[in-house]
């Protein structure tokens, strides 16, 4: 991290390789559009590179990066004024698995995608930051501009909603 702050391109490339996939997934889950998420990922890392030297606490790089990604996604949302309807849900081709596994994988992913889509954007972001990206509640509160208690409540409610929808699907399937 410190090497990247000093301008070491190799170190910054390492950070990109380490976090690009997560940032892209976060942006895709927020914007529900693969192209928009692609632009958001790019812009997030460009801004991160420009502002990296100003990061005073390198240990907080991850939450700082996701804060940037969240900000960029919200900017993109405001500019594009796109809806979050299912028509805009990302379509991704699974090249890595055999057809059967790919089918099961897509089904599982769509189950989570659809459940996430029922949440408000802020609640969805908070839940993803906690469950998918492993951030603590304090960084989540800072990113979302909430109090710590509100962050916990929002994640808890989002988790219950997700659990209810996924559970209903699994029970229905069985």
């Amino acid at each position, binding site marked *: 991290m410190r090497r990247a702050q000093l301008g070491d391109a190799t170190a910054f490339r390492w950070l990109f*390789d380490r976090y690009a996939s997560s940032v892209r*997934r976060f942006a895709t889950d927020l914007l529900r559009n693969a192209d928009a998420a*692609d632009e958001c990922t790019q812009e997030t890392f460009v801004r991160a590179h420009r502002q990296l030297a100003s990061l005073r606490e390198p240990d907080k790089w991850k939450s700082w990066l996701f804060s940037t990604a969240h900000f960029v996604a919200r900017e993109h949302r405001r500019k594009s004024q796109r809806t979050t309807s299912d028509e805009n849900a990302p379509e*991704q081709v699974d090249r*890595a698995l055999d057809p059967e596994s790919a089918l099961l994988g897509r089904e599982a*992913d769509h189950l989570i995608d659809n459940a996430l889509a029922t949440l408000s954007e802020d609640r969805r972001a908070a839940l993803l930051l906690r469950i998918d990206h492993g951030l603590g509640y304090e960084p989540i509160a800072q990113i979302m501009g909430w109090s710590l208690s509100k962050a916990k409540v929002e994640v808890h409610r989002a988790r219950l909603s997700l659990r209810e929808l996924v559970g209903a699907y699994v029970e229905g399937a069985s």
Partner: protein
Amino acid sequence: MNACDAAALEALVAEELPNERSKSVMAHVMECEACRTELAALRDERLRFATRAHRLSQVTQAADAATWNRVAAALVPQRRTAPASARRHALSASAIAAVVCVALGFAGYTTLFHHTSPIGGEPIAVELKVQGSTAPKVFTPPRELRGKSEVPVRDLADTAWVVSLSESPKVAVKMVGGELTVSTTKTAQGTVRVHVDQGADSIDADWMLLVEEDAGTGLRVELRCKKSSCGAAPSLSLEVDVPARSTLQLDAVDADLTVHDIVGRQVARTVSGNVVLEGSGNVDVHTTSGTVEVTGVGGESRVESVSGDVQLTGACGAGCTRDITTVSGDVTLDTEDQASYLLHYKTVSGELSGDQIQDRGSGDLRIGQGEGRVSVKTVSGGLTLE
């Protein structure tokens, strides 16, 4: 913990609790049916998202690589326009270099790369060459490097250095983009050549190439940024010839590494470049997505890869140990007639193939007399015995 504490259970699953606290929570969970149910739900939730993340990361690898190219490209104009003083400085340096070249000719340009300090021992030659540059090329024959040389990549012309080294020097190379080939010298002198596969105008003035000797015991070649930030790095093709008993430390991003016939220890760390090692020294390779080929190495080999495929060929027998670990990269092992080793393999979901291997997650095999030891561990990468 007397009641079911959802926050504690969540922190437990997220591995955020101190060890003692984890033990007390788990002790309660063992006695509490409701907590076990909640804990199972939290773990199931975590597993769902982790599986999804892993699967999507495989799907988006190509998109991530393309995004990096755009990020790198977007950063170049930022550096060119922002630091006006740096631009003036760079232009001045280039102008001075041009004037010196014109005024003093070939020999004058050469002096730009020299720092004076006593040298001794066996020399090594370093040649640098810029391709695709709009600047006129200047050919410089091999010369002795005294101390170190650090020059802007965009100003490089064909250049060569002679460096004194011991018989078993430490050689360290750091590069971003392009390819590196390391070979052995048959004489006391070696050769290194660099090709820059892009025009000088597209290379940021702050990218520097450092070539440095270390008191007769080592050589360092490093592409680095002079200022606080640099974006798209120039793609270099670098060839280095060093004594066969050299110890290598190679670090690269987006660069392919090839090493021939080095018998000293070789450590290679890459992000996305491919690695080919041919020789008999001990090797230690870490890569993120590049493929790794190790040929003819009979000593100790350790290869760690995230998504890059790994192939090891050549006889592995007495005194040979190989440890290969990948996440999703496939592993191919040679079982030629001379091979003699015990194989232990373990995979979570990777495919296993080969005449002698059983289609299950883990096992042990004896190849030949079983004198060496080979360990292969993967998450979703396959294992093939050929």
